[in-house]
């Protein structure tokens, strides 16, 4: 590991801190990109895919770029310290990859105006803070279509992580499209209150299977629900965040894949070129941020064709997964015939669509 030259001594930096000025950080000719992860890189899901994006950046730029990462960083004060540490050690661009890093990212960005920050799935920006997220709900629509066709018990189990708009959007998108192909379908939803906890996720899957679910959808990051589905037999599931192809011979019939690599490469390039600007990015299947993993032979050919056709029409922009007529759970009107949901409503979605049973936890 090469020792970096420091421009400013610690004493000067301390003086700057005390005077409330901008913080000094060390510099090198390489562009340094930092990644803050909420889970372990080996989670096989969310953090794994962000780390794949990091590796893609390394591969793309070779020696011109150095990447660093810290995994398992709790949201809050610890995240703030890790980001500060990266900025101090000379990072030029820092990706903070969990919603809970939002306020810490903004705080640290204030102290380091020259460092660029990219926060995943949040809504606060600053001149040196961008946000980015993927329209996972587009993938959920495809998933819902397959689930609606494949279920024989007409019960689809859904493992929610936290009742936040992101997750509720996914449930709604999956439900609407399952219902479209199978009017008898019902959703059973279990909230795990975690993004990554294999034991809790497995328990949630088992509960759903006991209640008659033969399709398990998950918005948590581990492969534990698929393992539980495999153990139960005759239950199918989907890879979440990552392809989870190791279960392709078993319960996994398809997957929603987060593909951060193109975005990470593009933003790193912008920093190298000096063209980086604060932006709010929300990309879906079209630009390739959301991928649909290979649909296995367990799915009948005509269902597969239908799912792929839906995917293509979403990718081309011909079809929006939230197209009216749609009503809210309480029976009130939401979208009129042919009307599509605007991004503002989707971003803050806090209601179920008509037909879903149960309440969103408060």
């Amino acid at each position, binding site marked *: *590991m090469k020792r970096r030259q420091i421009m400013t001594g610690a*004493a000067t930096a301390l003086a700057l801190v005390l005077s409330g000025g901008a913080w000094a950080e060390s510099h090198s000719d390489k562009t340094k990109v930092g990644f803050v992860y909420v889970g372990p890189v080996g989670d096989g899901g969310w953090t794994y895919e962000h780390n794949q994006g990091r590796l893609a950046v390394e591969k793309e730029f070779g020696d011109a770029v150095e990447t660093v990462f810290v995994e398992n960083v709790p949201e809050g004060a610890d995240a703030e310290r890790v980001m500060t540490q990266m900025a*101090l050690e000379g990072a030029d661009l820092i990706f903070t990859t969990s*919603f809970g890093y939002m306020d810490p990212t903004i705080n640290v960005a204030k102290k380091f105006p020259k460092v660029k920050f990219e926060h995943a799935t949040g809504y606060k920006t600053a001149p040196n803070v961008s946000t980015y997220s993927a329209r996972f709900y587009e993938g959920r629509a495809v998933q819902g279509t397959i689930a609606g066709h494949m279920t024989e018990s007409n019960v689809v189990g859904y493992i929610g992580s*936290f009742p936040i708009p992101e997750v509720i959007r996914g449930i709604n998108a999956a439900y609407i499209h399952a219902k479209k192909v199978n009017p008898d379908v019902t959703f059973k939803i279990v909230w795990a209150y975690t993004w990554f906890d294999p034991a809790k996720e497995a328990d949630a899957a088992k509960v759903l299977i006991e209640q008659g679910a033969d399709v398990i959808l998950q918005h948590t990051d581990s492969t534990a629900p698929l393992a539980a589905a495999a153990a139960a037999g005759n239950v199918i599931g989907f890879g979440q965040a990552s392809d989870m192809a190791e279960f392709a011979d078993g319960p996994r019939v398809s997957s929603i894949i987060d593909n951060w690599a193109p975005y990470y490469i593009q933003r790193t390039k912008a920093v190298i070129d000096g063209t980086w600007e604060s932006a709010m990015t929300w990309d879906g299947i079209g630009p390739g941020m959301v991928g649909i993993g290979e649909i296995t032979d367990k799915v009948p050919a005509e269902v597969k064709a239908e799912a792929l056709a839906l995917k293509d029409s979403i990718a081309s922009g011909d079809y929006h997964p939230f197209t009216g007529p749609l009503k809210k759970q309480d029976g009130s009107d939401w979208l009129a015939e042919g009307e599509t949901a605007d991004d503002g409503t989707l*971003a803050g979605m806090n209601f179920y669509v008509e037909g879903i049973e149960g309440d969103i*936890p408060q």
Partner: protein
Amino acid sequence: MLMLEKRPQPSRAFAYLTPLLAVLATMIAGGLMFAALGKDPIEAIRTIFWDPLFGEFSFYYRPQLLVKGAPLVLIAIGLSLGFKAGIWNIGAEGQYIVGAICGAGTGLAFYPMESWIIFPLMILAGAIGGMLWAMIPAILKVKFGTNEILVSLMLVYVAEQLLASMSLGLLKNPEGFGFPGSRNLQQYASAHNADIIEGSGMHWGVAFAFIAVIFAYILLNRHMLGYAIRLTGEAPRAARFAGINPARLILFCLGASGALAGLAGLFEVSGPAGQISIDFNTGYGFTAIIVAFLGRLHPVGILLAGLLMALTYIGGEIAQGSLGLPGAAIQMFQGMLLFFLLAVDVLTNYRLRFSQKGAA
């Protein structure tokens, strides 16, 4: 052959030496692990133990040691009182959460009014919240003889559910676009637990941690109640003959440790963390148990142990960021510390002897 022989008296020298030996053994075994991972062990150990204190950016890390260490010390001091008397509060994490909820809730109830009285009220609410949560296992134990270890531990999970419910419901930021989590108290001046001196890391929680250390020291060494605690732990029967009321002691120890854990939660939520969120608790309440034992249940020892633990956290993050060490290796390293402490601890009560006879 080598044999363990019980010492007639626990060795005072070893009581002080074992933590140092444990740290040393951790460095050696940890260094071997880092070497096995293909990293330079000397550089890794230096990064963890030296860089946060004396490295290039120590001006930032030193204050952070206080920020990270303060809640650990505050909670561990409270726990040590009970542990000394054989009263096992394992649920400090839950009391920490409830203290934070009560404190933050009190502050947010006044939003957006600005007044100097708000923060003291929050401190009070935090302490009372934590204390009441700890009173549940205390009263159940006194009245029905339930096991406080189980009850206090189970209440952690209840507290976590309460935390999720608060983040999604009652305390949810009305301007947060439907996302969970409360308003950020860092942006509410009257409720913000800011650094007393800007950039020093010395927030009120750090000040309270130091005060708690001093009070605990005086209590245990100069006060009748401290004598009662020590006597109950060392000789429960003798304590009863000496007229010590065990029920009152249980209520005091659990109540005090709950109040301190609640305070730690309040200072964390109003300062470094900033907001009530579903993932607000990060295990301080459990780590504090390690800190209490690492510090030999002695107030000054706990202070040092809390800072040492904070050092391994911060140094561990630096090692991850700059050396690419996996996070799991850092956790292993911290685990080794406790393991060696317990292992070396044997030497306080036993001594090694070469026996003349062969194996039995």
